[in-house]
């Protein structure tokens, strides 16, 4: 899932400065389950912003809305006509949601309340960790199911570097496990550690962000064109 967290209230206030009527729109999918932009969080942020701006002497009326998924047109279409009375929309969706709203309602100023952080999942209650960078050329087959592009600070494909601590932590942060230490342990457990002797060749980053914005087209799923015969 996409994992995000809220921008600090101070930053959001600054973004909304000068406005009087704002609609905060949450999303019922990824950001709801990481508790950054679901219905509950919309209520809390709207409440906090109303109070904060009132105390500043520049009350902003913040209304609250929620859609099932902000990244899909079918769920945001229902907002048509509802946005005119607002000076801005504060999207509490991930970056995809913010942009989908903005693309669909180009006459409305859409502002991001969240910082979208990564693709990952909950590893324990209240903790979410990054697991995938979307490199477009998955190499999990070679590393026992642990992604070095995401989980190694240096994206090593033939790791580890010399900085692993004695208890298997990354040199960058003692709380972060060394991905290659974990890969080695995992592959030992699977009895395939000899595979690590192969020198993994340089990655083709063109399938990643480096190659430019990516798109997937599925001809089998697109809406077929009817041939009128005209």
């Amino acid at each position: 899932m996409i994992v995000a967290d809220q921008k600090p209230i101070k930053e959001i206030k600054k973004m909304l400065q000068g406005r009087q009527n704002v609609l905060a729109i949450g999303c019922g999918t990824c950001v709801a389950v990481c508790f950054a932009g679901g219905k509950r969080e919309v209520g809390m942020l709207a409440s906090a912003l109303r109070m904060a701006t009132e105390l500043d002497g520049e009350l902003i009326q913040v209304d609250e809305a929620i859609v099932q998924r902000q990244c899909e047109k079918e769920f945001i279409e229902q907002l048509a006509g509802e946005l005119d009375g607002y000076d801005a929309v504060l999207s509490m969706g991930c970056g995809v949601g913010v942009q989908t709203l903005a693309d669909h309602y180009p006459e409305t100023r859409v502002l991001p309340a969240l910082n979208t952080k990564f693709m990952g999942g909950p590893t324990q209650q209240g903790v979410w960790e990054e697991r995938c960078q979307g490199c477009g050329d998955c190499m999990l087959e070679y590393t026992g199911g642990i992604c070095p592009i995401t989980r190694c600070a240096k994206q090593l494909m033939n790791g580890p570097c010399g900085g692993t601590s004695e208890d298997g932590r990354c040199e960058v942060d003692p709380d972060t496990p060394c991905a290659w230490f974990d890969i080695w342990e995992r592959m030992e457990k699977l009895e395939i550690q000899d595979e690590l002797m192969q020198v993994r060749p340089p990655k083709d980053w063109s399938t990643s962000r480096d190659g430019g914005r990516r798109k997937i087209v599925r001809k089998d799923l697109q809406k077929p064109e009817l041939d009128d015969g005209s």
Partner: protein
Amino acid sequence: MVDVMMKDGMKAGMKAYSQLERILASGQFAVTGEIGPPKSHDASVIRDKCALLKGFVDAANVTDNQTGIVRMSSIAAGILISNEGLEPVIQMTCRDRNRLAMQSDILGAAAHGIKNILCLSGDHQSFGNHPGAKNVHDLDSMQLIRMMREMRDNNQFQCGEEIKGGGPPLFIGAAANPFAAPVALRPMRLKKKAIAGADFIQTQLIYDMDRFREYMKKAVDLGVTESLSVLAGVGPLKGAGMARYMRNNVPGMSIPDHIIDRMEAAVKGISSDDKKARMEASRAEGIRICIEQIEELKEIEGVAGVHIMAIEWEAAVEPVVRGAGLYPRPEGIS
């Protein structure tokens, strides 16, 4: 082009005919040192450091934005070192350059006659003075080693295109940290670097001779030393405090208690007010220990030389090299 001619005329098995390579090929115990470039464009800093190392080492490493702190570039400093008549080993990290910049820099270095290049992953930028920088890591050090070998031996760029006029003569180096976790993996990793194409290895600082002996035995058994030369990292300690700091903070640093005890014993009896005398006594013991360790390393099978890292203490190189019976260094060998 001079380099191309040299390549054709090279002795069988020689890759670049650098001074370091020639000494290793001749079976003599090699000595390399290290120069940290300045955080400025002041070339005189390089010249001063060269003066302390010249004649005592076969080649001197130049670090590449070490610890993520911006310093004069390794290649530029390497050229200055060459101009002083000392052979450089330039270091190239994977942190700051993509494969285009790497190949471009390699060609540039070779154009200036630089042959020894050490491939490193690079310390993470969060340690340095530009922690918000984007890190590159287009290739990792293993892939860099292989890429350099292919440029040299197959006259090929990484993309497969031919390097017209032939590839650069390179003596390819890599680093090893024998005691970093996971320890069981390290000899295998050394072998992998040999397979990738490394010609020589410089290890992290070694203070634990027993553990290093075990490591080298595994390396020899794996056949690693048949295709590359291992230079053990050594460094004179300045004091017990420094030793303890390194043990606690540097990954893979294994410093036995008896070494720390000796460093502490060195200042026993000297008043804590007499800082100068304490420092002199500490340093003298540090140099003594370093010399002893080099003597032990000479006896370990597979160790082809030492890489002396006298951190901010280049003046220590001379007494260490002399004391270990490694002076004078061989002249240019044919």
